[in-house]
């Protein structure tokens, strides 16, 4: 039974990891903090909802369009809101994205109302037996999808020419420019990838917590995950998300269920007291 709770905790954690990953990628390559990461997810979820519920397209096609739209949303955010402020302090950009998240949330409310909607899962909801554990198909799907996405991203950044160039930009924009790398293009690509991750997040999360304009609030857990794992660390974002997910699901197993939201954040504070940079975070070294 505990094992099963852990597995569903990993599934929840995968969603936090995706949020944290989207945040971390943008932070690492551009230095910006994107508060609207969750709303990007929410919007692409509503795009899919419109496709299958209002326009009557098939679910598969709608989910495909949802992923496509998430990339477009990322690119539009970058081009419209972030690039004009490219020379502004990072804090200004944070406030811009915070504003954008409020506009997106209220705007979506105007169009689709603030109700909760059922969202079909891309995965079967029956349970499978895996050795000792009986696992829900949806949880399994979430874990598998997240795992595959992380692997693809890992290989992309580690070995592809574009990924290596993007890492170069995140280390030194000036040096990258002089290697013939377009920093603007690299930024746009980062937002596109982050947008895509938010779209995958929408497809995975909306069936579990229902589609609503408040869905984007999951970004708070994404921030917590990224900070727990070590702000700016990609493996840290993944690890932090999964840890939070497990804690959140295991805590009610031993304690009263209202504790669900307290334990993860208590652990977060505890970890940061012992290791202020987070689990995998590195101390910032400054050249003296």
């Amino acid at each position: 039974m505990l094992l099963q709770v852990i597995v569903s905790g990993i599934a929840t954690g995968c969603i936090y990891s995706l949020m944290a990953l989207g945040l971390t990628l943008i932070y690492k390559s551009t230095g910006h903090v994107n508060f609207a990461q969750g709303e990007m997810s929410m919007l692409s979820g509503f795009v899919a909802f419109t496709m299958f519920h209002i326009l009557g397209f098939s679910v598969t096609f709608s989910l495909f369009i949802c992923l496509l739209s998430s990339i477009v949303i990322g690119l539009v955010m970058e081009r419209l809101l972030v690039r004009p402020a490219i020379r502004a302090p990072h804090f200004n950009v944070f406030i811009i994205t915070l504003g954008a998240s409020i506009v997106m949330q209220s705007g979506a409310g105007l169009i689709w109302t603030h109700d909760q909607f059922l969202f079909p899962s891309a995965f079967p909801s029956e349970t499978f037996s895996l050795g000792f554990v009986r696992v829900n198909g949806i949880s399994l799907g979430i874990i598998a999808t997240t795992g595959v996405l992380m692997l693809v991203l890992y290989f992309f950044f580690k070995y592809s020419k574009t990924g290596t160039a993007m890492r170069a930009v995140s280390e030194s924009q000036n040096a990258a420019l002089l290697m013939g790398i377009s920093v603007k293009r690299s930024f746009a690509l980062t937002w596109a990838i982050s947008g895509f991750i938010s779209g995958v997040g929408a497809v995975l999360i909306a069936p579990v917590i229902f589609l609503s304009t408040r869905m984007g609030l999951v970004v708070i857990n994404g921030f917590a995950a990224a900070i727990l794992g070590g702000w700016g660390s990609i493996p840290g974002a993944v690890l932090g998300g999964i840890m939070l997910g497990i804690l959140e699901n295991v805590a009610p197993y031993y304690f009263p269920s209202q504790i669900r939201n307290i334990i993860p954040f208590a652990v977060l504070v505890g970890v940061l007291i012992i290791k202020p940079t987070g689990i995998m975070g590195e101390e910032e070294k400054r050249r003296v």
Partner: protein
Amino acid sequence: MPLLSVAKLSIHFGGLAALINCSFDVEQGKIFSLIGPNGAGKTTVFNIINGIYKADRGKILFDGTDITHLAPHNVARLGVARTFQNIELFSKMTVLENVLVGQHIHLCSGILSGGLLLGRVRAEEKLAREEANNIFDFLGLTDYRSHLVSDLPHGIQTRVEMARALAAKPKILLLDEPAGGLNPQETQVLMQLIERIRSDLKITVLLVEHDMAVVMGLSDRICVLHFGQKIAEGSPGEIQKHPRVTEAYLGETVEHA
């Protein structure tokens, strides 16, 4: 026609005139040095050529193209590579990865195929790695190829930065104080390398350097800047005898050189 032609370049930073009407031509296949006391505007010239700074007035022609108003990454694509005064490597990457980034402009695989590692990309990557190995042989870096740059000593990092610049197969290489912080033996090796970059790789070199032994030993032509103005240009012999140069800068160094 010179490979690089800088004409009447001027730039101000606030009230400070960092360059005033500076002109010089760099011929194909030569080693051309810019010298002058600290703050003379040498690195500023580099930054304008690279497109990092925009000149107030003046024009830069490179290989027949007006690059005065080009963005840095487009200047790089035309064949201008550079190293920095304070090494600017990607220090969290390996030596090999740094060189692969240097090759960026010559690798043409797109985002999607790059992500999927298709056949054509594989072939391209293989070629890229072979070329990287040639550069490592050339610069004596083969043993360090999988090291993280941040773990390497300064002297090696200097060479890694040259390797990254050479990986772009440039027509001209801008070296900003390559001998800075090197010991005498390392400086000797560096001089041989720069000479071989010109003779073996046929790359024109534009050099900014404070070490007069390096400048006098390598240069075909030298241009002297003083407070943003060109005060002399000529062969090493001419520069050493030039009265305004000795007065402004070289002074006692000439006797020792």
